[in-house]
């Protein structure tokens, strides 16, 4: 039974992995630093651990979807990330894709006529 639960956890993790980027981009129209993003997302029910988020932010910056600046005025220096123009464009595209994907899935799940847990 423990194995079964592990399988479910693994699948759920896989399902969430694909939504991480869109979640992150959605919160960066205003500059945020890494840990503030973690807390904001957490409050909205999307948990992402910093060990995944920080490298991801760097990757997105390298892909020129994000811009960053170091703010050294506060008590501790923080790197603030925000969407670049290209990032905004990409985010809109992803949103569109997400809507159509979720519509399709919705109809797939509804169309499940009692064969599974539907």
């Amino acid at each position, binding site marked *: 039974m423990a194995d079964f639960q592990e399988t479910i956890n693994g699948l759920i993790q896989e399902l969430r992995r694909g939504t991480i980027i869109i979640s992150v981009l959605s919160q960066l129209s205003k500059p945020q630093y890494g*840990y503030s993003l973690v807390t904001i997302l957490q409050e909205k029910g999307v948990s992402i651990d910093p*060990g995944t988020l920080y490298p991801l932010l760097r990757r997105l910056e390298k892909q020129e979807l994000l811009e960053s600046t170091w703010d050294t005025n506060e008590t501790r220096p923080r*790197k603030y990330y925000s969407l670049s123009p290209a990032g905004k464009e990409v985010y809109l595209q992803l949103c569109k894709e997400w809507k159509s994907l979720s519509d399709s899935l919705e109809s797939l799940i509804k169309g499940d006529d009692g064969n599974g847990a539907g």
Partner: protein
Amino acid sequence: MELVNRYIHAVTHRLTGRQREDIKRELQGLIEDMLEERTEGRDASAADVEEVLLELGDPQKLADQYRGYGRYLISPEVFGSYLAVLKIVLLSIGIALTVASAFQMFTDPMDALGHFLDFLASLFMGFIQGFAWVTLAFGLIEYSRAKRIRTGIRAKSAWKPADLPPLPDHRLSIKRSNPIASLILTILLGLLFTSSLNLFGVWHLPESGSMKIVPIFDETVFRGFLPLILAVFALSIMKDILKMAAGKWTPALIGFEILVSLLHFVLALFMFNDSAIWNPDFMRQMAESGITPAGSEAFYNVSSIWSRTTEGFIYLIGIVILADIIAAAVKAYRFRTIVRR
């Protein structure tokens, strides 16, 4: 906060230059933020620190994520062929050493135990050497792979069905027996050159008395070339390992094969260009050993063969190596015609 510093170091020392400082600062801030949230103003305890670091997880994994790829000496992708080649190389070394050792026992049966102990010692050293060379070869392959990933060449152009490699063509495949034989021969020669050079000679077992060998080479002169010989042999072993690893001819392999052949030739030129390499007392020793008594017909025959061979030897080697190079060139030509189709 010693533990925090140790953690940050454990992540950043695995990363390269530019990003290192940046990530260090960022991680510092992150950990402080996480601690602050946890403690809400009170001083962080050792337990708090430990909890936060546990949440961040294995520093090695974090570093891999920052880098974007894992680092390996031998990555899982090539581990299978690494093991296969390693087995063959160790087996070849075992065979070569056993043959050499059996040979020594045969020529000097008095000291059987000594030879056996020598055999075990050289087996041990030989296996370590073989392991090192194979690992080095695969390490180089791995390094170039990682470099391709780092510089992003793999994503250069979209994949097309036309990019599919042609089905394995038997004319381009390398039969394993070829590099294995070459490997065994190279190791055997290397062994003989280093430890039993005196075995290269004319063997004479008189009806009474002990066996005599009249050496062909001048040992001191020959020994002077040994470092060069071993260097070329090492390259040759490397080439055989790469051939086994690839399993088929590629332009780079053909080039390497030709290069190694040329180096063999240059080495031979160095060694045999001047006749000092040959045993200057060969004919006198032949006569003294009683194989060809001075003044006999055999003496004159051997004498004329000896002088002709020592003069012409370099041409003989040249012909063998030329044949090698032509064979490689034919492969290169075939490669072009097959790949063009």
